[in-house]
């Protein structure tokens, strides 16, 4: 034990450190007092290059912002009695009357007009549940049951045919509910699948591994449009005659296949970042493979892959707009349909802007939530 005593004791150095600390506590950093004019000179006009950039940007802002404000607000035509497309065209500003006229079509597609409270209720259920699920205190088994129950309720609402609700074929579903259903169901199913694929790709079992590698590389190597085409056109050819699978379901399966391959690679990245020591510690305690994976490896791997995961989620949410090519009326396709009304032809800007705002609202929420969750998960064990 004597070996350590000599290493431990350096009384001299300890005292000197203390002295330095007390001295440094008194000295304050120099005050940086600059007036607003001084700040402008120090940051915007400190070199000739920065001065040119500053002037250029001011000039561009002058050129862009006033016309934009004119179009968006000052010259725009709001909804009102007897406002027609002619009035809009004459004004030269944005035609919000068009959005007012068509928003039901854009948001709900061809769903029967009188029954549109049903998709509204479905959207509210989905958004509400997403809100509840974002609270970590509710991450309990019963939440899964709530989601399953919600899926049933949404199915009843959208299809109807029971409880006095008129039946609505799912070819009439469209707009925001379709986009939300395709993305939420897609991600909820693809996410666990992708975890299994990622684990399988790192497995020691040769057959499992090669199956997972083949699946991931095959799906990832093909554009989403191709997967959707195959799901809608080629897949029915392989089915026995008389058996048909719903078009919406086929599109949903195509999206799930695609998303799971991408998510699997993101998760594999996280699995590889976990130090070998974590696996060894779990092994040495006698945990089984699944206990180790569930309790030690995945919580850490998923928490470090939040940024790329959310990146993929957001990409997937927007990629669902590609179902337009197989004739499903999601939010994007419905906005295009709205433009085909002869009375209101040509208001592309307003239509796309409206859809963009809806997409942005959802994507921005996902992005902000992921940042918050990242902080929340790392708060405890940050050094």
């Amino acid at each position, binding site marked *: 034990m004597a070996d350590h005593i000599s290493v431990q004791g350096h009384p001299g150095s300890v005292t000197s450190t203390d002295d330095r600390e007390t001295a440094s506590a008194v000295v304050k950093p120099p005050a940086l007092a600059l007036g607003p004019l001084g700040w402008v000179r120090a940051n915007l006009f400190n070199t000739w290059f920065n001065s040119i950039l500053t002037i250029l940007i001011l000039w561009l802002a002058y050129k862009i912002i006033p016309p934009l404000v004119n179009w968006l607000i000052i010259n725009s035509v709001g909804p009102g009695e007897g406002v027609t497309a002619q009035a809009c065209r004459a004004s030269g500003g944005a035609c919000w009357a068009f959005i007012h006229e068509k928003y039901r079509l854009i948001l709900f597609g061809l769903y029967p007009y009188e029954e549109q409270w049903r998709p509204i209720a479905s959207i509210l259920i989905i958004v509400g549940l997403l809100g509840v699920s974002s609270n970590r205190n509710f991450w309990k088994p019963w939440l899964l049951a709530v989601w399953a129950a919600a899926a049933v309720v949404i199915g009843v609402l959208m299809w109807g045919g029971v409880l006095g609700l008129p039946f609505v074929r799912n070819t009439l579903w469209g707009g925001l509910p379709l986009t939300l259903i395709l993305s939420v169901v897609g991600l909820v199913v693809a996410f666990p699948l992708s975890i299994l694929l990622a684990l399988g790709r790192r497995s020691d079992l040769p057959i499992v591994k090669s199956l997972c590698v083949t699946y991931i590389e095959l799906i990832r190597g093909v554009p989403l449009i191709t997967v959707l085409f195959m799901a809608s056109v080629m897949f029915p050819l392989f089915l026995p005659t008389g058996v048909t699978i719903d078009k919406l379901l086929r599109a949903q399966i195509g999206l799930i296949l695609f998303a799971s391959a991408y998510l699997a690679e993101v998760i594999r990245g996280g699995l590889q970042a976990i130090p070998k020591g974590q696996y060894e510690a779990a092994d040495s305690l006698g945990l089984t493979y699944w206990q180790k994976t569930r309790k030690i490896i995945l*919580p850490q791997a998923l*928490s470090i892959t939040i940024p790329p995961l959310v990146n993929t989620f957001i990409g997937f949410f927007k990629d669902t707009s590609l179902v337009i090519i197989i004739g499903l009326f999601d939010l994007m396709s419905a906005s295009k349909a709205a433009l085909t009304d002869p009375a209101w032809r040509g208001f592309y800007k307003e239509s796309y802007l409206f859809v963009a705002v809806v997409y942005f609202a959802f994507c921005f929420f996902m992005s902000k939530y992921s940042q918050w969750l990242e902080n929340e998960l790392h708060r405890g064990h940050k*050094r």
Partner: protein
Amino acid sequence: MSDVRQTVAPQVGDDIAVQLSDVHKWYGEFHVLKGINLTVSRGERIVICGPSGSGKSTLIRCINRLEEHQRGNIVVDGVELTNNLKNIDQVRRDVGMVFQHFNLFPHLTVLENCTLAPIWVRKMPKDQAEAVAMKYLERVRIPDQARKYPGQLSGGQQQRVAIARSLCMNPKVMLFDEPTSALDPEMIKEVLDVMIGLAREGMTMLCVTHEMGFAKTVANRVIFMDRGEIVEQNAPNEFFNNPQSERTKLFLSQILAH
């Protein structure tokens, strides 16, 4: 060499905790363990030392199958380590291991680190597991840190938590793989004190370490390994004062020089 073992081992107990016979292991072409024979009795404290790359870490990692041996037999507490996963799980439940870099689970609190294996492997009720964990956290003298995360603790505290985590499984054998090598000098003592306490209570221990003071205090037997072989083994007094082989003498002169 075999006669040395016979003179030392039987004094401690008749029961055999760990037995290795003619164990070989290769990393690719590199022959890292060359026919290791070692019998550890119950309650025996063994310190393994040797230059880096001598195979001492690999040796103790074979005992709980973190590394797979390719020839020979390893029997731990009557269970032979083969490809049989059931045997491996049984051995791992009964053998605790402490690593050089602690390997605590950073996303779990200190208490959760300690209760995880008892709850999931031993199927212990949660409150009972927590009571056991607090008992061992008190034993390593950090019960007040139970609700913190590993990242908030010093290296010495983390290593003591790692020891408590192993003890919660009530192991029959404890393996230490250079437990103090990653620690700042002023923290080495707090960890060694805990290990000395364990040794006094009769825990069977195999410890890879260069802490020769620790070896002198608690070891029944010191083993010197070089190039994948056990070169020399003896009681600490004999080993340090009267080393037999040239390689041991050279190693001791280097390690005790500073």
